[in-house]
């Protein structure tokens, strides 16, 4: 048991680092209007992790289909593919200690190349692409690495201010090994001027934090005559080693 806890690869059972809530967006950010009625007003109650937060579900490769990580093909008719700028999005899932985290489910969703979502609530006049659904998933490798193939999503207008536009973005949902690491965020694209005016992006107080959500264009990772590449690393909460913790029976 102790050897397991000491190993980087064994199961770790230490509690998570406290979440820095000043780095995340606060619940209430009025320029993003929907937060006004949906933000808790009272302070969250803190406690150190129990087993309920340290444990978490795991997902095996048996859930994955062959095209699950390819948005250009996974909704397309045979022999066809989604319209748009073909890109690879790749990176690693790390924790705050800088360790790659293997075996994690990473799910993504996005608008099509014109900025339209395949969703009955999206009425933007840009057309649907009959070969584009908008979801994908994969499981991180031994070093925490993951990759998706997709088309670059378009920016789109949204009903917030009278003329607000979302920058091009891909939504990411990531599981850690602990349910307390659960995270949803968004990836933006290097060089997009809409990033700095978006009320959702600007819910994050610190510019340095926003920059960690901007994927870097990576010319070296480009696949010649096929797809350009963007690198996007995701960082989950780290965890304490359980070396010196006082753990009476029962844990």
């Amino acid at each position, binding site marked *: 048991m102790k050897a397991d806890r000491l190993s980087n690869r064994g*199961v*770790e059972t230490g509690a998570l680092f406290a*979440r820095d809530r000043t*780095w*995340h*967006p606060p*619940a209430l950010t009025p320029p993003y209007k*929907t937060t*006004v*009625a*949906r*933000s*808790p007003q*009272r302070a*969250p*109650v803190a*406690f*150190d*992790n*129990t*087993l*309920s*937060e*340290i*444990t*978490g*579900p*795991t997902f095996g490769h048996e*859930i994955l*289909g062959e095209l*699950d990580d390819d948005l250009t093909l996974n*909704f397309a008719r045979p022999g066809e593919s989604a319209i748009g700028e073909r890109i690879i999005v790749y990176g690693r899932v*790390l*924790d*705050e*200690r800088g360790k790659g985290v293997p075996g994690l489910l990473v799910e*993504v*969703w996005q608008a099509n190349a014109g900025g339209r*979502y*395949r*969703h009955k609530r999206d009425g933007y006049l840009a057309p649907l692409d009959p070969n584009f659904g908008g*979801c994908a*998933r994969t499981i991180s490798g031994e070093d925490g690495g993951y990759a998706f193939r997709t088309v670059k999503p378009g920016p789109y207008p949204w009903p917030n201010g009278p003329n607000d536009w979302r920058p091009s973005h891909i*939504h990411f*949902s990531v599981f850690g090994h602990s*349910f*307390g690491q*659960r*995270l*949803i*965020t968004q990836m933006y694209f290097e060089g997009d001027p809409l990033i700095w005016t978006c009320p959702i*992006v600007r*819910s*994050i107080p610190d510019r340095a934090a926003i920059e*960690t959500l901007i994927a870097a264009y990576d010319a070296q990772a480009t696949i010649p005559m096929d797809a350009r590449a963007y690198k996007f690393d*995701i*960082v989950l909460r*780290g965890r304490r080693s359980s070396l010196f913790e006082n753990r*009476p029976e029962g*844990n």
Partner: protein
Amino acid sequence: MAQSLGRLRESPSQTAGPYVHIGLTPNFCGIEGVYPEDLGASMLNAKTKGERITVRMRAIDGTGTPLRDGLMEIWQADAAGLYNSPAETRGSADPNFTGWGRKAADMTTGECVFETIKPGRVPFPDGRLMAPHITVWIVARGINLGLHTRMYFGDEEEANAEDPILTRLEHHIRVPTLIASRAGDTYTFDIHLQGEKETIFFDS
């Protein structure tokens, strides 16, 4: 200057937005044929041990309106109080129970309905037993960082009265916001994001 700890910072959260279904429950929103079924739709099978229950949850905004575009995930122990997780070191959980469920809110009522079992008690780090509970995680448009709360069971008064989390709350008057009421085999849990009955959310 001292040595660098070499740490990274957690990626900042962003809202799941109104189209969270596309990524997490695509079949629910009509994107069929990509995944055979939505992940987390089913938590148990015929062999699962424990008392079958139905849990109906809603998240309600500050105007009293249920969120009809949100999504909830739950995480719980099995009937013996063991988690189906590699980090569970006390024993092997029921292999016929995943412990994890995911449901999009109903687009009319806002309800997330989970067919599950009543969890057993799990120890707190000091060894005392916590009351049976379900961890709840809520994401939606207008929620910048997923909300973490717990659902406790209204028919577990004795266990609730000695639960290490519930008993340490400074504002004990708010404990009822964490407790689901039972009618038959169904528990109903309304999560209020704001207002007089604002549910307790956790930072853990």
